């Protein structure tokens, strides 16, 4: 993606803009000669790097996606394993200083449970007599990594005793493990949904922008129409139409496609407006005069020059997908158990009483907010960087 591109537009644009460029703060960390020979992608990278919050968000997202990709390895337990003795156990605190003084290896205290005779609820107290050191690469439940390699090594865990860093749910399932598995589904819904929206958006928006006229009019009406239907009721109606007997994987794809049915409109608008403005550019005219075919002009000259804008728009569209999936699953019309997504996890925390007694069930929500915020900041940074010639 970062190959150097030196078509006429770039050199032309650079020559035009060099006055403002030399004034811009971009020169602060790189000598001016470099700017003249830098490719467009390099200029964008320089500009993006200056947006500290966006860089930080990018790193955070990479970490979250690593969580999702390696969830089997990173999670201490199988997400569907019941620890019946530890239902609704509160999060354990990682300690370094215990009864025996400081230890470099972190540990957690054990939990002692007793049933309250009045409320009939299981209550937990910290059992300071038991210290479970946290170890890395411990043997635990066997699993198939990515469904291929069979292993039983978990990144963190304890050799004996329990490790519930984010507590457990109603059935005594480890919330941390479930959040990590949920990252895989929730974050990939965003990516896959945006990919479908993008394909639809580029095809429909591109046709509309390139041909104009009656096609454009129809597409614009359609987009306007889709945008003025309230999304949640529409999504609810469509997801409720997914047959209940479908296997989880098919429901997952079904939900994602439903989310993209609205999502493509925004991307189609961006593509169309870019097509409209680029169609009038001199380098397109030059390519036409030089005898380039329609397809070549679009693919070789137009697409590369708005690719960066598209990437920024995609990044800004992903959080809506994630929020959509979370909301639908929370309502019970999106993904359903046994699939684990952040929305499915939040469904556990649906009434006030549960939240008041077991607030850690809201933790998946923190991950949703973090992912959505990070995508927004990253998208902002990319959008600013997409046009490196504007200060």
């Amino acid at each position, binding site marked *: 993606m970062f190959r150097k591109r030196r078509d006429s537009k770039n050199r032309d644009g650079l020559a035009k803009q060099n006055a403002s460029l030399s004034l811009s703060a971009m020169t602060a960390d790189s000598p001016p000669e470099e700017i003249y020979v830098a490719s467009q992608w390099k200029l964008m990278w320089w500009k993006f790097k200056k947006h500290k919050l966006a860089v930080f968000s990018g790193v955070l997202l990479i970490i979250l996606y690593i969580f999702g990709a390696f969830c089997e390895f990173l999670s201490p337990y199988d997400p569907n394993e019941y620890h019946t003795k530890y239902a609704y156990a509160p999060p354990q605190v990682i300690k370094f200083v215990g009864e025996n003084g400081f230890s470099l290896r972190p540990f957690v205290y054990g939990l002692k449970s007793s049933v309250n005779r009045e409320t009939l609820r299981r209550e937990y107290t910290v059992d300071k007599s038991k210290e479970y050191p946290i170890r890395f690469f411990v043997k635990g439940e066997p699993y198939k990594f990515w469904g291929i390699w069979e292993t039983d090594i978990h990144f963190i865990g304890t050799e004996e005793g329990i490790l519930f860093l984010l507590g457990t749910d109603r059935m005594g399932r480890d919330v941390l493990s479930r959040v990590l598995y949920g990252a895989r589904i929730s974050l990939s819904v965003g990516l896959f949904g945006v990919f479908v929206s993008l394909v639809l958006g580029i095809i429909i928006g591109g046709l509309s922008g390139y041909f104009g006229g009656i096609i454009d009019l129809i597409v614009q009406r359609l987009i306007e129409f889709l945008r003025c239907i309230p999304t949640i009721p529409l999504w609810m109606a469509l997801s409720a*139409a997914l047959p209940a007997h479908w296997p989880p994987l098919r429901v997952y794809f079904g939900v994602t496609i439903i989310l993209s049915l609205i999502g493509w409109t925004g991307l189609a608008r961006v593509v169309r407006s870019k097509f409209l403005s680029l169609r009038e550019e001199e380098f397109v005219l030059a390519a036409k005069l030089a005898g380039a075919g329609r397809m070549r002009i679009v693919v070789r000259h137009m697409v590369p020059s708005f690719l960066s804008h598209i990437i920024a728009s995609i990044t800004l569209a992903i959080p809506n997908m994630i929020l959509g999936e979370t909301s639908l699953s929370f*309502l019970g019309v999106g993904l359903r158990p046994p699939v684990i997504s952040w929305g499915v996890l939040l469904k556990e925390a649906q009434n006030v009483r549960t939240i008041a007694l077991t607030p850690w069930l809201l933790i998946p929500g923190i991950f949703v907010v973090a992912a959505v915020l990070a995508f927004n900041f990253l998208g902002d940074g990319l959008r600013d960087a997409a046009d490196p010639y504007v200060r």
Partner: protein
Amino acid sequence: MGTFILKRVLLLIPTLIFISIVSFIIIQLPPGDYLTTYIQALEATGATVDQSTVDALVKRYGLDQPLYVQYFSWVFGMFKGDFGYSFEWDKPVSELIWNRLFLTLAISITTLLFTWIVSFPFGVYSATHRYSIGDYIITFFGFIGLAIPNFMLALILMWIAYSAFDLSVGGLFSPAYAEASWSLAKLIDFLKHIWIPVVVIGTSGTAALIRTLRANLLDEMNKPYVVTARAKGVSERRLLFKYPLRVAMIPFISTVGWSLPLLISGETIVAVVLNLPTTGPLLLRSLQSQDMYLAGSFIVLLSILTVIGTLISDILLAWLDPRIRS
């Protein structure tokens, strides 16, 4: 101006037709219909359903007709105020929806006003005091407001109210007024309850509007005419209110169009969490039980509401900003 309004109103007709078709397709999508679900439920309880009862039911609801006949009888029924029959509630749909639709509309409009009132001073402050601590705080809360899902905000507010003030929030009326007819006392009770959904639904919209107002105002304030006016010694206050603010206000009107669908979307999901007697919970139920006439009527009416809202905002916008009319 007249032709502009006429054009927009004429465009409304195909949109409404399209909405009705899409809604009809949606309610036809689930495999089977309510009747099959109903019969299954009856059989599960051990009751025997003989064929003649089934046939009578099918005939009564017109389920034996071809789809397009069902569609047209549904659409023409709506013109007469007949929205079909709710199988689940055993009542005509029209008896179930109007009250809830009215409350949804009331909450949405209140939320819109809340959004405007809150975002105006904060947006202006944020733009005039750019990069100050206040601006950063507003921006920070703005981003949080955008990122937090509506239903989670509702849950957190409920949690805080429950654990800190021992208040049980939710619903729109105290039990004493729930079934009472409208009176001044009921209205006051309603106002006491409405603020929670309004704040929850309005947060993301407010955050978005603050960002837009800030960006627009900043754009406008860097324009040469403002610089000229400042150089000539016009006071900062006059400088801000005379022109830039007026131009920057345009999104307040134009966002009515796209914020109405957002508000109604948000209202739907928040109502489920807060258990409000509005369209949301009933729509969810009707979709889950395939009560198709009820679900379809809700979707049609909610869409029509937003389309009309968009129309009003377009007309207002054209009236406010002559550049759009052409």
